[in-house]
Each structure stands twice: as C-alpha cells, then as structure tokens.
C-alpha cells in the first residue's frame, strides 16, 4: 500500500469524522460518545493478530489480555449504547 493511498484514507476519514457530529443536538451528545467509545474497540484487531500469529509467549499473552480488555468495552459499551439509545427515543 503506497504512502499516498494511506494519506488519502487518513485525511478523508478525518474530514468525514470531523463533520459527523457537527449538527448533533445536546441530548444526543451522550449517546454519540457511548457509540464512539464502543467503536474504539477496533484496536482489538491488533490484539487478535498478536494472539493468532505470535511465536513469543509474551506477545501472545499481551494479545490475549488485550482481547479480554477490548471485549469488556465491546460488550459493555454497546449494551450501554443500546440502553441510552432506547432512553433517548
């Protein structure tokens, strides 16, 4: 993947992300924060690769620990988002 492609994706995603919340009503701030927090869990990809591919036990255990912690945020975070989403409607 070329540096140019990477930069394009990075910059476009920043612009789209920056505009995503601009018109959010104050009542929507907390639900949006909750959803954004839960989506941060994509870092689990790094932990998954570490666990699946690492030959060193240290990296494996770091990966497994990362998977557990990220899963706390995935399940807890989205459950919370569902609750807030329902309350807001």
């Amino acid at each position, binding site marked *: 993947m070329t540096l140019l492609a*990477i930069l394009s*994706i*990075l910059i476009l*995603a*920043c*612009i*789209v*992300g*920056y*505009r*995503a*919340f*601009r018109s*959010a009503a104050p009542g929507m*701030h*907390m639900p*949006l*924060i*909750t*959803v*954004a*927090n*839960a*989506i*941060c*869990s*994509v*870092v*689990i*990809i*790094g*932990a*998954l*690769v570490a*666990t*699946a*591919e*690492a*030959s*060193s036990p240290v*990296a494996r255990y*770091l990966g*497994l*620990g*990362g*998977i*557990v*912690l990220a*899963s*706390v*945020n*995935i*399940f*807890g*975070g*989205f*459950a*919370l*988002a569902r609750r807030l*989403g329902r309350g807001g409607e």
Partner: protein
Amino acid sequence: MMDGAPVDWGVGLSYLASCVLALLALRRAGHRFGMAAVALAIATTLYIHNAEALPEILIAITIGGAIGILVQRRLAAAAIAQMIALFHGAVSLAAVMAGIAAFVDPAAFGIVDTATGDILGRSGFALGLAVLLGAVAFVGSVVAFLKPGGIVSIGRANMSLLLSVLNSVSGCAAAAMGLGLGHMAMIAIGALVGASGASLALVIHRTAAAPA
C-alpha cells in the same frame, strides 16, 4: 494489508464494509451499525489469520464480554459517564498491550525490516505513538472514573467534554496502530473516531460557553 499477505478482494471489501458501518454508527448514534462494524472487523481478522489460537481467542472474548455485560447491568443510571470512563480505560489499555506486543514480536505482524531483523522504522514510530496515546487515554479514563461521585460537581457538560476528548485520543491511538501495522480499516475507523471526538468536544465546549 500486511506485507506478504495476499491481498484478497473479499477481505478488503469486508473491511471496507466495516468502515462504512462505523461511519453510519457515528452519524446516527446507531449501536446496531457499530456492533456490526466491530463484529465484521473481528470476523474478517480471524478469517485471515492462523486458526490454531481460535479457541483461546473465543474464550478471551467470552470472558471480557461477560465482564462488560455484568458491569453494565449493575450500574445505576446516574453513573453512566463513570461507566463509559471505566470501559474506555479497558480499551485504552488493550491498545497499549497490542502495541507492545507488536514491538515484542514484529514478525507476527509482518513488520520486520529484512535488512536489520528489527521492527521497521516507520512502524515502530507509529506503534510507539499508539502506545503513548493509549497510555494517555488510559490515565485520563482513570481520572474520569475516580472523580469522586462527583459528576454533579464537575457538571454534565465537563464530563461529556472529557469523555469526548478521551474518545478522540483513543481514536488517534487506533489510527496510529493502523499506520504501524499497515491496516487500512484501523486507520480509517481510528481517524473517524479521533476526528469526530475532537469535533464533538468543540461542539460541547461551545454549547457550554454560550449564554443559555
């Protein structure tokens, strides 16, 4: 995709779909889109990597998921901001651990410099940044969580401002990790969360500063 790994159309499109779902989730505060985005990203990652560790991985996800659901069930509605801070602390620590794992075993991530046998310079830089940002978000989350029952004294606006900044920092950590690992979906989703968190922080700041 990682160096040396075959670039597969199905895999690429699946990660792209995950990015689009993440964007939809952010636009509408739609938890269903968000869940689909993360689930698809996890499924795709598991599909293209060594399946030997799959049982351990599923057990780890189950343990973490059970903890998350239990904690979420037990909280009172008043402590939602604190609960987000707690969950956020967990995911920032996960980013730190994954980043360190990449330094410990760069070969697993396909980011070894063939000339020196060490981690690639640019990957090391981006991953170092990811670890640093993850650590900052972790400390910030702990501070937000420990604010003594004091969401009242901090004020709702300040707490959501803090959480939004933390989201932004973690999003940047995810984007930096994506840069380090050459993982497009992580770059895109991390940048989306990072930029949207920053813009929401500005919106909250302006709303709070404006005379009511």
